[in-house]
């Protein structure tokens, strides 16, 4: 193969070098991970996932279901404390999303009751939608496991919190039940505004 000319190689069906598509990496991330599926918030508002929730925003995303007995209540309670730590930023320039993985049961009304019971504040939306759309979204957002048995168990999708800054193409993950102060600091890793910088330095200097 190494002795083939470039021309012969291309003749065998390889992509022509000049055929590369010029696409911004931001568009590619959107295409690969953020389907613009319709969703409904726990307040009953109809939204589109990419256009209304992700585009140009600094966000957190996790998956929950209200009948969950294991991680979800703990994670949700923990994230309420995270929301408290992030104060007025949530709802102003940082938005929190919890997507139900059990959309048949978790109607907007059920989600609203769940959010109220946990004392969820403004700027944090619980979301439901059509089962196929939710499943598509789950896989695109990588709340999935290679092991099909594991992947079929809803409890294994509820532990991680994605945090990201869409315009800056920065995405990370932290366990939702980590210490709330640590979760808050991790979220701020992708906040590249001035206030976030100070938080980052402060976050990890402890050596005593």
């Amino acid at each position, binding site marked *: 193969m190494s002795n083939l000319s470039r021309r012969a190689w291309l003749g065998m069906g390889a992509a022509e070098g000049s055929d590369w598509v010029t696409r911004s990496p931001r568009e590619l991330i959107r295409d690969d991970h953020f389907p613009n599926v319709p969703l409904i918030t726990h307040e009953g508002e109809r939204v589109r996932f990419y256009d209304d929730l992700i585009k140009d925003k600094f966000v957190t995303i996790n998956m929950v279901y209200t009948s969950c007995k294991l991680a979800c209540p703990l994670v949700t309670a923990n994230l309420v404390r995270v929301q408290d730590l992030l104060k007025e930023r949530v709802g102003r320039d940082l938005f929190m999303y919890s997507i139900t993985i059990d959309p048949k049961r978790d109607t907007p009304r059920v989600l609203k009751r769940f959010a109220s019971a946990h004392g969820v504040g403004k700027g944090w939306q619980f979301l439901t939608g059509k089962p196929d759309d939710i499943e598509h979204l789950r896989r695109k957002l*990588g709340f999935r496991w290679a092991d099909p048995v594991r992947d079929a168990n809803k409890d294994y999708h509820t532990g991680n919190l994605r945090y990201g800054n869409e315009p800056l193409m920065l995405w990370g993950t932290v366990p939702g039940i980590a210490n709330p102060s640590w979760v808050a600091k991790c979220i701020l890793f992708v906040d590249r505004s001035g206030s976030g910088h100070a938080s980052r330095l402060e976050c990890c200097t402890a050596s005593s």
Partner: protein
Amino acid sequence: MHLLKHGPGKRALKAFDNRQEIIKAGLSRRDLLKLGILTGAGCLVDGFTSRSAIAGSPPTRAFVDLLPTVRDGTMPVQTALTLNPAPTAAPNTAAGEGRTITHQAFNQFPAQKFYGVTQKAGQVLVSPDLPAQTLWGFAVGTPDMNNPITVPGPLYVAHYGEPIIVRNFNRLPPAGQNGGFGLPSVTTHLHNGHTPSESDGNPCDFFEIGRFYDQHYPNVLAGINSTHPGTGDINEAMSTLWYHDHRVDFTAQNVYKGLAGFYALFNQFDTGDELTGFHLPSFPQFDIHMMFADKVFDSRTGLLAFDLFNLDGILGDRFTVNGKIQPVLHVSPRRYRFRWLDAGPSRFYQFFLTDLNNLGAHNLFWQISTDGNLRPTPKQVESVRISVAERADVIIDFTPFAGKTLYLENRLQQNDGRGPTDHVIKPAGQGDRVLQIVVDGPQVADNSGNPATMKFYSLPDATATPRVSRTFVFDNSGPGWQINGRSFDCNQVRFTVQQNSVEKWTLVNDGGDWEHPIHIHFEEFQTLSINGRAPTDSPLVNTGRKDVLRLEADATAVLFFRFRDFLGKYPLHCHNTVHEDHAMMLRWDIAPVGDTNTTP
């Protein structure tokens, strides 16, 4: 789940599942064959998995580019320079240093040489069939020297007894210009130097764009301030180290993007000159570093792609060695030392030497080190298995292969990021040929020693009674990747080791088909047992001093440590960098007084 685990139908099920996903994606069988994704028999080409959100790489030719090496001048070597302002023990915050902790051994081991290295973006070619890639890498020297980056970064040639300071400059592009992944906030770990904590490149000691960070590498043997005052224990000597970004939560992205390189540490025995010391093949002519990293390139743009939302681990379908896809190395018919490193992010390799014209041959060679630490004697092997961050130095005698073409072939099957599937070894010639070795160089003198009669260092004593025995369970219950039921937090000290004490650590893999390459910073360990039995060296080498333990599915390993000399924080973590970034890590500290927490 366990019924399925060893069942014959599991892989078939998985293949079916993968194919169904692809069919759903609307690609025809003809498309797949054309793309090289499906084999004629209808199986997915190994190394490609639809589990990734990213489709397979565009076609690339193998064995076109030459392997970049120090020998050929295509892998740069760091050169000493004068740093201005001069390094200080305390952080020079006013001058823009991002370090926050005073150097603890600055005066005891004054630096004799100074280096600058600049982390920035640059254009790099990985294959003649792909467009130039904008990667992040290390450039020799200070930012004003304006040298180009290379991937891997420049090689450090260091010597025991010669302390150095490396000033790392962060000149990465601002957020929003990362090409889709990578956080421009860094901390460079020297894996696995006997380095004071503040210079170790701890995941939590990251620094931002525009700043620099002075790292003080004493290049001393373990024991220098304790068991072997003034000299250190020669039996703790290390040879092959590497450096890589270790930014908490973003290590996988940043290393995948290019932030890694080699650090060679010589002494009076491992001299780099085959006429002296242990008579190992001379550096750099016959002593060649090789960094293995598997990658995926976007089929639309031809550019390096990273699956941002993966939990299991990421596999690439293109195999790079020293930054080039399936390169070529020309050698002379004589002995060579190769230094192999698996740079991740998640793949395990088992390398064989393959002659396509003689597939039945058992081509033997000598493994001389584990994780860069020379063994007591070389061990003749047919293959070497390395997981992420593991190193193996080998000596291969190419004399019997004069005029032939060989391949370094990875025959270990791996279908997804969890680990190698049931340790299936593929037939010779059907694995991933990562490097072509052409034995067409001129006849040259070989003054290197015969590995069959070489003797290196003795193993340090591992019979001392531990001050404390600790157990670490690695699992993935509902909340995600954990150690002893908890996840990483920079500010949480999980346990404290007493300085200059002996400890026994038991690592337990508790769940699923995962294999975890577990890395412990700072001190090398010896494996006392695996699943209750003493480790063996046949067919794979499992003894010797190491810093990464391949923790296989459902396995238990007991490790012996002697923690000496320096103080401060260090991590223990899974080096599958995807698991690591999902918090499968913990912080432990060394202090004058330790605790006795047995399940921290």
